[in-house]
């Protein structure tokens, strides 16, 4: 009996070891197809030998996998990502079936990485992170679109944008243009009622006016003149940085004398830092600004402790402004005054590109996916995806203005399918019908017409370069900027230059040189024509009621 027990125990131990070995061997079943299937696809011919219900087949009923970017909007009961009228419409019009996967809102990059590594991705990915294609390209998990671009309606229509998706001379990512709001910047929100009590009836037009306003608030009230938080090299300071031409909210690079340079290291950045330090020393900004958060900043303003606040974008405004009104505050968006050097101050939060789309190396029918992109780019399909079905979800008058029906107002879930979304549609769908106009269009005023563009925004970016840029910013630039303003490090030209040199030596020089070379290679284009407003000339739905003067 004892011997049997021992034998059983040994067998159990062996089984455990063997199961461990088994788990680590072998390839995932759905790995990349053979090169022969790729060759047949590249010639444009369908390879329809397999059953139509199997994924990856061409022809009617071929199942296309689409991995869509995350969003928090839930589907109504009875609907799902693969079961709703929009996907049914796509099925009916294209003859394809769909396997739609929506990435989660949290850890979506890790999830996508796992799916690729696990061989779960056999179709097309729509992504908002423009470094994502380079990550998977580096792991050789993508295939280019080049063989399928000729004659494609999508690539012909949006050909001006596709440079951003090229890697190693091939089109690994298809770039979808703006989702309608290319120019969105930071906002000054001010207590107009408080300014009125201290004799400021007009919003400041120049840097000197703005500076005087802040010091008047300081001397004549008990309030903090300007509420800001985090290091001055970060996005929340963008409106102040823009006064020195070093605005870098999502646009860290600039062209100076034909070279691409980082704004944080430009000579004007030293003037900016000097000004920030003065604001700190004179008590114009909170002494504990480094430990504040966006929430605590709101509390300062809404709690009548701060007279001016910088908001990084318009997205928190639908709750912030009503809360301010409920507190009997007269809050207004203030226009950017002219800058320190007399220039027009411009802020940026560019959204020139909505999404990038890329194909898995495992995809067996790339032509079908390009056909789908062509379909999605058709104006009538864009209209259905964005507004629904006429009569059922919206009505349209002779002027083209659209009014959503009750069913149309419950189409929030369609955000997952609005992958190609033209700027003119934003005004209707989100600006007017989702009530964003009064909050968004005031921010656009500070980016439209700028000539100080960021060239890197329009070029393909390698994930490794972005990682290096982020790391250098966090370890060198953010640290110096914070310490220089608080006095922990003496702010002098020497220390500033030392910081710049440290950044250059740590990898910044290579980044600048690389981007300069890339920029010159494409002809050093001027992208300032991209900074336009899509607000229609006639816009009855947007009044500008939160602007200083209360109207657009």
């Amino acid at each position, binding site marked *: 009996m004892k011997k049997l027990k021992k034998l059983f125990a040994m067998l159990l131990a062996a089984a455990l070891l063997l199961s461990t070995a088994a*788990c680590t061997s072998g390839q995932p079943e759905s790995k990349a197809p053979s090169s022969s299937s790729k060759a047949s696809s590249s010639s444009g011919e369908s390879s329809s030998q397999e059953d139509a219900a199997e994924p990856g087949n061409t022809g009617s009923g071929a199942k296309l996998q689409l991995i869509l970017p995350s969003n928090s909007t*839930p589907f109504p009961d009875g609907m799902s990502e693969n079961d709703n009228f929009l996907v049914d419409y796509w099925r009916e019009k294209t003859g394809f079936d769909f396997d739609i996967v929506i990435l989660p809102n949290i850890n979506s990059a*890790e999830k996508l990485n796992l799916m690729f*590594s*696990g061989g779960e991705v056999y179709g097309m990915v729509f992504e908002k992170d423009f470094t994502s294609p380079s990550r998977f390209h580096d792991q050789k998990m993508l295939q280019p679109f080049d063989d399928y671009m000729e004659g494609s309606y999508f690539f012909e229509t949006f050909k001006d944008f596709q440079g951003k998706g090229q890697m190693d001379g091939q089109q690994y990512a298809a770039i979808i243009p703006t989702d309608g709001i290319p120019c969105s910047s930071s906002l000054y929100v001010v207590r107009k009622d408080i300014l009125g009590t201290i004799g400021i009836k007009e919003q400041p037009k120049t840097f000197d006016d703005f500076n005087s306003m802040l010091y008047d608030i300081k001397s004549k009230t008990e309030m903090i003149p300007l509420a800001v938080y985090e290091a001055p090299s970060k996005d929340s300071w963008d409106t102040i940085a823009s006064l020195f031409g070093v605005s870098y909210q999502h646009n860290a690079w600039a062209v100076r004398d034909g070279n691409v340079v980082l704004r944080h290291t430009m000579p004007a950045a030293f003037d900016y830092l000097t000004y920030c330090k003065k604001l700190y020393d004179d008590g114009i900004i909170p002494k504990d600004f480094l430990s504040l958060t966006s929430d605590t900043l709101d509390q300062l303003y809404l709690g009548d402790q701060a007279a001016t606040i910088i908001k990084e974008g318009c997205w928190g405004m639908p*709750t912030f402004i009503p809360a301010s009104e409920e507190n009997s505050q007269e809050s207004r968006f203030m226009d950017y005054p002219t800058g320190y050097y007399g220039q027009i101050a411009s802020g940026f*939060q560019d959204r020139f590109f909505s999404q990038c789309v890329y194909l898995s190396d495992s995809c067996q029918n790339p032509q079908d996916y390009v056909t789908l992109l062509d379909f999605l780019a058709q104006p009538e399909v864009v209209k259905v995806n964005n507004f629904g079905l006429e009569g059922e979800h919206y009505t349209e008058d002779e002027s083209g203005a659209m009014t959503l029906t009750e069913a149309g107002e419950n189409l929030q879930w369609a955000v997952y399918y609005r992958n190609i979304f033209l700027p003119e549609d934003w005004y209707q769908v989100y600006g007017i019908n*989702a009530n964003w106009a009064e909050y968004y269009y005031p921010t656009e005023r500070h980016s439209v017409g700028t000539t100080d563009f960021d060239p890197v925004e329009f070029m393909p970016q390698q994930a490794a370069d972005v990682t290096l840029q982020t790391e250098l910013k966090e370890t060198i630039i953010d640290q110096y900027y914070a310490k220089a303003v608080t006095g922990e490090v003496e702010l002098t030209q020497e220390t500033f230059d030392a910081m710049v040199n440290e950044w250059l030596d740590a990898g910044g020089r290579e980044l600048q040189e690389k981007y300069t070379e890339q920029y010159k290679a494409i002809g050093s284009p001027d992208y300032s024509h991209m900074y336009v407003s899509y607000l229609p000339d006639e816009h009855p739905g947007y009044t500008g009621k939160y602007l200083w003067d209360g109207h657009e």
Partner: protein
Amino acid sequence: MVNMGKKKGQGIRRGMDEKVFRVLSGALILLFSVACLLPFLRVVSEAVSGDTAVASGEILILPKDFTLKQLKFILDTPQFTQGMWVSLSSTVVYTVISIVLTCMLAYPLSRTDLPGRRGLMFYVVFTMLFNGGMVPTYLVVKNLGILNTFWALIIPLAISQFNVIVLVNGFLGIPKEMEESALIDGAGQFTILVRIMVPLAKPTLAAILLFYAVARWNGWFDAVMYVNDRSLFPLPVIIKDLVQQGLNTSMFPSLTTPPPTQAIRSAAVIFSIVPIILVYPFLQKYFVKGVTLGGVKG
């Protein structure tokens, strides 16, 4: 003061230093308790206060402009109730399965006469310290055919090596004579496990049950990685998503709904911890006793 039946004036006298120590330690514990309770109280207050009062930073401990609007919003939102259901069901199923599997692994490992016991224990401890990583684990889950299913929330983390070790030590603490007398009576190993070891190891099992239940209740990362179907997302995933939306005001939001207010985020957090708070008092005594009983012995 300990009274051992002695007459007045004959009890144990505590020196001044001991009194000072008791006062100081009491004060420290009180301070620590307040430090733990205050943030929780604030979150509760924010959950039942008006939006504007919360956004204006007027809430410290007591609510202002009392309202149940936020909690009602949470209860009326299908995402949250669905997430609660998934969390509850997955926690119950996971806990039961995990306890059964842990018992079945811990019992033979607690038998000192098991051949290869050291090797098996090493195997368990080794996997506790080192694992294959995210990608191999994902591949295992995928090859088991449970990706994007309810079982993806159950099977991959069904056995915790730490809990196995705790239970092994718990079983080791049971006198061997109990097993021997059962063997004499003709009981098999399975009967001994079910009728003798498990009942006697109840405190340890209760502690492990709580560990498993809380781990599953709070777990979100595995759900995000292994599940695509949003109707299978447990509550922590939904709460984390909500909180993250609200914190990142520069992030391009859904555009179809305004970002969640601080009050709503607080209400969501309270909603998620209510079940644990309701259950924990009943298991607390087992928790403390079980952890100490399951402590590593020589």
